[in-house]
């Protein structure tokens, strides 16, 4: 299993792996928003948590279709499905690899980009916390969506449409944690709900993803 993780990380950072895509997109969104809205620092402060969360979510969406599509195209997925590693674990590890190459860099970059949006200093910690607990759910839900659409040519469109509604609860709770934190309010309740949502996702979706993957490999 460590082998799959190591291989996926290696493939992601090699040429053509698409490692920087999500980060670059996130950077572009966050840099352009203040230009589009004008120099109203009060407004920027108010919308900063939401914009950062939305940017992270959309960046995450960009690389989802690669989770299984590349392995499906070159036949590795068939071979992995007949190998000793259980498909459920494979799905979980694939999601983890996606998070390590997409979610984690976004978490680390977000506080820095928060400066561009005039995010108050008190809001940095809750924002990072909410992204840290929320982005694993984005990757896991995305892996499920990718398993559903594997084998479809240009399945990216369908994948986004399937995954977007599933992302809504994570977005609402995550952005709420960041917003309350930035406004100096208590954010314990949404943070706990968000953590619960992520734990539930990680516990259940590998099984769902493995089940649909089996159907798609036929």
């Amino acid at each position, binding site marked *: 299993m*460590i*082998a*799959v993780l190591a*291989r996926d990380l*290696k*493939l992601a950072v*090699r*040429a*053509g*792996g698409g490692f920087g895509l999500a980060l670059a997109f996130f950077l572009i969104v966050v840099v352009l928003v203040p230009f589009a809205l004008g120099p109203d620092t009060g407004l920027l402060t108010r919308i900063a948590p939401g914009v950062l969360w939305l940017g992270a979510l959309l960046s995450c969406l960009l690389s989802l279709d690669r989770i299984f599509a590349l392995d499906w*195209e*070159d*036949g*590795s997925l*068939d*071979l*992995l*499905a*007949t*190998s*000793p*590693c259980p498909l459920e674990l494979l799905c979980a590890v694939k999601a983890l690899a996606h998070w390590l190459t997409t979610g984690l860099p976004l978490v680390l970059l977000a506080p820095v980009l928060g400066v561009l949006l005039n995010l108050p200093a008190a809001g940095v910690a809750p924002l990072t916390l909410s992204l840290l607990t929320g982005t694993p759910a984005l990757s896991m839900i995305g892996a499920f969506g990718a398993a559903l659409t594997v084998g479809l040519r240009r399945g990216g469109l369908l994948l986004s449409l399937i995954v977007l509604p599933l992302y809504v609860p994570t977005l609402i709770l995550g952005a709420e944690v960041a917003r309350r934190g930035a406004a100096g309010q208590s954010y314990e309740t949404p943070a706990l709900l968000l953590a619960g949502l992520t734990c539930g996702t990680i516990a259940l979706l590998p099984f769902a993803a493995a089940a649909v993957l089996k159907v798609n*490999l*036929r």
Partner: protein
Amino acid sequence: MAVSVTDLSVARGGVPLLEAVSFTVAAGEALILRGPNGAGKTTLLRTLAGLQPPLSGRIGVADDAVAFAGHADGVKSALSVTENLDFWASIFGVTDISPALEAFDLAALAPRRAGLLSAGQKRRVGLARLVLTGRPVWLLDEPTVSLDARAVASLMRCLARHLAAGGSAVIASHTDLDLSPARPLDLSGYRARDPAPDRFDEAYS
């Protein structure tokens, strides 16, 4: 008995292709599947590998006994030959890839990026993976495609060694393989009857 198949029917995309297929493959023996394009050789192999369920019938082979090699080689272009084989070795719990490199004459290519290999060389990397699996039943789908005469000879040597060690193989191939003991099985005799119903009502009966 390494593989026993009783009264098996398989379908591809909902269309039945083969029915009432029965055969056994003993340890140390190879079965060569023959039949025209579209006869269902690949579908039969994928069913044996457990990648798709049979329509009906029974397959007597343990899931952890089969090693499958299909049309696609499962070789990552961004990784070197060694890295590709190392990956599969660790999946199957093996540490030493040198037997695989040796069996398919890959030592000289080992440090090269797989994306730069020719189709035949890539195929050799894909086949070398079989050696690493350590599994007794090899399911090979057109293994000789894009291989030159020398590589085919290496494949035959490798297969002969595998059979001599008590392994078995089911191979779909159009070419004559110089392999013994090998038994041919012509699949054209097992073609499923045309399932299309004559009338609309029958389709929903």
